C-alpha cells in the first residue's frame, strides 16, 4: 500500500536529519581538536541532529490527526533547514584564517565582564558583513525541541561566543575593534544588559511615533501598531549605538575609524533600516564620544572620515528617531563607561606609544612588547597596536601594515600566556661596548646591537629572558605551520608553471598551548616566533639546538639570513627520529648566530620575494629570475629528443 503524505514527509525529514548528522561528524573529523570553542560548537550541532530525529518521532506521536502530523513535519523541516543554514554559513569556510589570538582576547574580555567559561567560536562567514550570534547557541539551537538533547557532560554548561568574519577581508587587523568592540558588546549585553539604563522611554514620545506618515520598512508594515513597531526600531537602534559607544570606549579613535570605514563599505551612509541606525548618525555620535579626548594622533586617524558623519532627511520616522538618539549622546557615553568597567582608552595617555609603534610598522617592524618613552619603558597593549595600525594606514605606510599588525598582536597574546604560565617577565637587554671587529657577535655585542636606534639596529621581538647567551640568540617556533597534504600529482616540477606548492601544501595554525605532532620522516615548514630585522652590516646563520638535534629533530635547512632581512624566519622541521615528536609552539629549538660583514651590504630590491614574512612562507622557487631561461633550455632539449615539453 502506498504511504500517506504525512508518512512520506516524516521519512524524508528523518533522512535529512541523519544526513546532517553525518556531515557534522565528517567536519568534526576534518578539523580535529582545534581549540574548545569550534570543537564544542560542532559537537552541539551533532547533538541537535540526533535530537531532531527523536523530536520527529515524538511530534508524530503527539499529533492528534494527519492534519497536525503534516503541519508538525513541515515546521520541523523548517527548524532543521535554518539550523543547517547556520551550520553552513559558519563552518563551511573554516576558521584557520582567523588569528587565534583573537579568540583569546574575546574570552579575556568576557571574563572582565564576569562572564566566565565563555568560549569564542570565530569563523570565516559569507562575504560582506560581520555576523554575531547574540543568543546562546545551545538554547537557540534547541529552541522548542522537547526531547532530551543528550549532551555529553562537557557541553551541559557550554557558553559560546559565535562571531563570523566576512570572507576575504574579515581577518584584517584593522577590523578588530569591530569584533572585540562592537560585536562582543552585543554578546555581553545578552548576559549583562545595559540598554534600560539609558532611559529611552523618557524621551521617546509614542504620540510623535504614531503621527509619522512615511512608510515603514515593508517587513514591519502590519505587525502591530505603528507606534509599537517604531518603538522596537528605536530599541534596536539604541542597542547598536551602545555597541558603537563600547567600541570607541575600548579602542578610541581606532574604534571610530574601523566602524565608520566598514559601514561605508557595507552601504551608503544614509541607508535607514529597521535594525540599524543610519551610518551617518552612528559616525556623528562616535565623533562626539571621542570629543574632548581627541588628540593629534586621534585626529590623524579619525578626521579623514568626518565627512561620513551627519543626519538623515527622510523618512520622517527616521528623522524623529535620529533626533531622539542624538539627545541621548552624553547619556549613552556615561552608561557605557560605567558598564565597561575599565577606563576609556584615550590617546592623551598613549599617543607617544601609538606614534612609536606606527613608526616601527613603517620601518617593517611589528610593534614591540614595550617602548621607551622619556627613558621609561611602557608596556604595549593590543589596543595601542590597533591604533598604531590605523595611524600607519592613514599615513600611507608602504610596509604590509596588516601582516605586521597581526604578528604584533599574536606576539602579545603569546607573551600574555607566557606570563600567566609563570614565565619570567621581559627585561631589557644589558648594554655593552660596541665592537668594530668582524666575526661572530658575542652576547654583549648582540645586546648592544639590540639597544641601538640607528641604522645598525638589530631587532628581535619578542626577546624572552635568557635568549641572548654565548654567541647566539635562541629562537622559538611560532604557531603557524605549512604541512604537506596528500597530492594526486606524480611529481613536483619547480619549472612547471602549472604546478603550485599550494596544491600539495596547506597552512595551519595552532593555538598557543596546543601541539603539532611531527611524524618520523615528515617535513613541515614552521617559522620563528621571533620577528627579526637585520641591519645592513650583519648576516646570520640558523642552527638547530643540539638538545633537539640529538632527539632527531632537524630545523633550518636554509640556514643563511641576509643583511636587511626583516621577518620571521621559515624553519624546515624534519623528524629524523623513529617516533612522533610533539612540537609545542614557543619551544626553543634553534639558535641564530650573527656575523659582521666586511662592509655594509647593498639594500635589497623592493621586490625581494620573502620580505616581511610573519609566518612560514610557501616556496617561491617559481619566481626565481633564471626560471624562464631554464625552461627555454628544457624546451630546446625536449624538441631535440622528441619529448613532450613544459
Amino acid at each position, binding site marked *: 500500500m502506498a504511504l500517506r503524505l504525512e508518512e512520506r514527509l516524516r521519512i524524508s525529514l528523518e533522512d535529512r536529519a541523519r544526513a546532517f548528522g553525518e556531515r557534522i561528524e565528517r567536519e568534526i573529523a576534518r578539523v580535529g581538536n582545534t581549540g574548545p570553542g569550534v570543537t564544542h560548537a560542532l559537537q552541539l550541532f551533532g547533538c541537535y541532529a540526533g535530537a531532531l530525529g527523536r523530536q520527529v518521532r*515524538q511530534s508524530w506521536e*503527539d*499529533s*492528534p*490527526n494527519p*492534519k*497536525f502530523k503534516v*503541519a*508538525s513535519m*513541515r*515546521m*520541523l523541516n*523548517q*527548524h532543521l533547514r*535554518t*539550523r543547517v*543554514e*547556520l551550520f553552513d554559513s559558519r563552518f563551511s569556510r573554516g576558521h584557520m584564517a582567523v588569528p587565534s589570538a583573537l579568540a583569546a582576547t574575546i574570552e579575556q574580555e568576557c571574563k572582565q565582564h564576569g562572564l566566565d567559561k565563555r568560549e569564542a567560536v570565530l569563523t570565516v562567514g559569507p562575504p560582506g*558583513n*560581520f*555576523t*554575531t550570534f*547574540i*543568543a546562546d547557541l545551545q538554547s*537557540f539551537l534547541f*529552541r*522548542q525541541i*522537547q526531547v532530551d538533547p543528550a549532551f555529553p557532560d562537557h557541553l551541559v554548561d557550554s557558553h559560546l561566543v559565535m562571531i563570523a568574519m566576512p570572507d576575504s577581508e574579515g581577518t584584517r587587523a584593522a577590523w578588530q575593534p569591530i569584533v572585540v568592540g*562592537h*560585536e562582543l558588546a*552585543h554578546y555581553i*549585553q*545578552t548576559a549583562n544588559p545595559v*540598554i534600560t539604563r539609558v532611559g*529611552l*522611554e523618557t524621551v521617546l514620545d*509614542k504620540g510623535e511615533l504614531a503621527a509619522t506618515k512615511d512608510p515603514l*520598512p*515593508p*517587513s*514591519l*508594515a*502590519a*505587525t*502591530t*501598531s*505603528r507606534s*509599537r513597531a517604531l*518603538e*522596537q526600531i528605536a*530599541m*534596536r537602534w*539604541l*542597542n*547598536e549605538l551602545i*555597541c558603537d559607544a563600547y567600541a570607541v570606549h575600548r579602542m578610541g579613535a581606532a574604534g571610530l575609524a574601523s566602524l565608520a570605514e566598514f559601514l561605508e563599505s*557595507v552601504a551608503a551612509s544614509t541607508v535607514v*533600516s529597521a*535594525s*540599524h541606525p543610519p551610518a551617518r548618525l552612528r559616525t556623528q555620535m562616535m565623533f562626539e564620544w571621542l570629543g574632548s579626548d581627541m588628540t593629534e594622533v586621534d585626529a590623524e586617524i579619525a578626521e579623514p572620515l568626518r565627512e561620513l558623519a551627519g543626519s538623515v532627511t527622510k523618512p520622517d520616522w527616521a528623522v524623529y528617531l535620529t533626533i531622539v538618539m542624538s539627545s541621548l549622546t552624553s547619556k549613552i557615553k556615561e552608561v557605557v563607561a560605567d558598564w565597561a568597567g575599565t577606563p576609556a582608552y584615550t590617546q592623551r595617555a598613549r599617543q607617544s606609544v601609538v606614534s612609536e609603534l606606527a613608526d616601527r610598522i613603517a620601518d617593517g617592524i611589528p610593534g614591540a612588547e614595550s617602548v621607551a618613552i622619556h627613558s621609561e619603558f611602557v608596556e604595549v597593549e593590543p589596543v595601542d597596536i590597533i591604533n598604531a595600525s590605523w595611524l600607519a594606514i592613514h599615513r600611507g605606510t608602504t610596509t604590509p601594515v596588516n601582516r605586521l599588525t597581526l604578528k604584533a598582536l599574536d606576539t602579545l597574546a603569546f607573551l600574555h600566556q607566557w606570563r600567566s604560565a609563570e614565565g619570567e617577565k621581559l627585561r631589557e637587554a644589558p648594554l655593552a661596548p660596541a665592537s668594530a671587529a668582524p666575526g661572530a657577535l658575542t652576547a654583549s655585542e648582540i645586546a648592544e646591537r639590540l639597544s641601538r636606534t640607528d641604522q645598525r639596529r638589530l631587532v628581535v621581538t619578542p626577546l624572552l629572558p635568557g635568549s641572548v647567551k654565548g654567541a647566539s640568540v635562541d629562537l622559538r617556533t611560532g604557531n603557524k605551520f605549512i604541512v604537506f597534504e596528500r597530492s594526486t600529482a606524480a611529481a613536483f616540477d619547480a619549472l612547471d608553471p602549472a604546478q603550485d606548492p599550494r596544491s600539495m601544501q596547506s597552512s595551519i595554525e595552532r593555538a598557543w598551548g596546543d601541539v603539532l605532532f611531527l611524524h618520523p620522516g615528515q617535513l613541515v615548514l614552521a617559522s620563528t616566533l621571533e620577528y627579526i630585522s637585520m641591519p645592513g652590516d650583519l648576516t646570520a646563520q640558523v642552527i638547530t639546538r643540539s638538545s633537539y638535534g640529538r632527539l632527531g629533530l632537524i630545523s633550518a635547512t636554509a640556514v643563511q639570513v641576509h643583511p636587511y632581512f626583516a621577518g620571521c624566519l621559515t624553519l624546515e622541521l624534519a623528524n629524523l627520529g623513529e617516533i612522533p615528536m610533539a612540537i609545542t609552539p614557543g619551544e626553543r629549538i634553534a639558535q641564530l648566530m650573527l656575523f659582521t660583514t666586511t662592509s655594509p651590504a647593498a639594500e635589497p630590491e623592493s621586490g625581494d620575494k620573502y620580505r616581511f614574512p610573519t609566518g612560514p612562507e610557501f616556496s617561491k622557487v617559481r619566481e626565481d629570475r633564471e626560471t624562464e631561461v631554464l625552461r627555454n633550455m628544457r624546451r630546446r632539449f625536449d624538441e631535440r629528443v622528441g619529448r613532450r615539453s613544459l
Partner: protein
Amino acid sequence: MHTSSPTVRVDGSRAVVGAGDSLELRMNASAVGLLSIRVASAAARVRGGGQINQRDQVALRSVSTDLREEARVLRGEIVPSVTDETAYAVAGVTLTALGQPGDTASATDEDLARRLDRVANDLEKLASGRSLDDALLARLESVFLRAGELVTDSLGESGEVLEGVPQGPGPR
C-alpha cells in the same frame, strides 16, 4: 553588522518571518511556528475528548507568558527587549492569525493588548485543565494552526533558485 534579534514580522496578507535579513530571525521563527502548532494540537486533542499532556502544558504556558509580556509592553508598563524578541514575535504572529490582514496597524495599543490578554486567558485555562466550550477550543485550534502555517509559508521558498535571469531594474 548583522545582529538583529529574533522576531516574526507580518507584511500585509503574508507573514514575512525575518524579512530575509537575518538567519537568527528565521531560526527563531521556526521555533515560534513549532510552538504554535503544539498549542493548536493541544486544543484539538482536548476537543476530541483527549487529555493535554505535560509537553502541551509547557507550550501553552510559554505562549501565554509571551502574550502577556507583549501586552505589558503595549501598555507601556515595561520596556521591550531587543536581546530576545520572542514575545514580540509570538504576539505578532498571533495577532495576524487572529484578525484580518492589516487591521493591527489601525488598532490602538490598548486594543491590541486586550486581544493578547484574552488569548492568554484562554490558554491558561486550557493548560490548567479547566473545561472550555467546544467553540472556543475550535477557535484556538484554528488560530494557532493558522499561525503555524503563516510561519511555514513565510520561511519556505516557491521552488529551486534560478540564477542568471535578469529581473527588475539594474545593470543588464
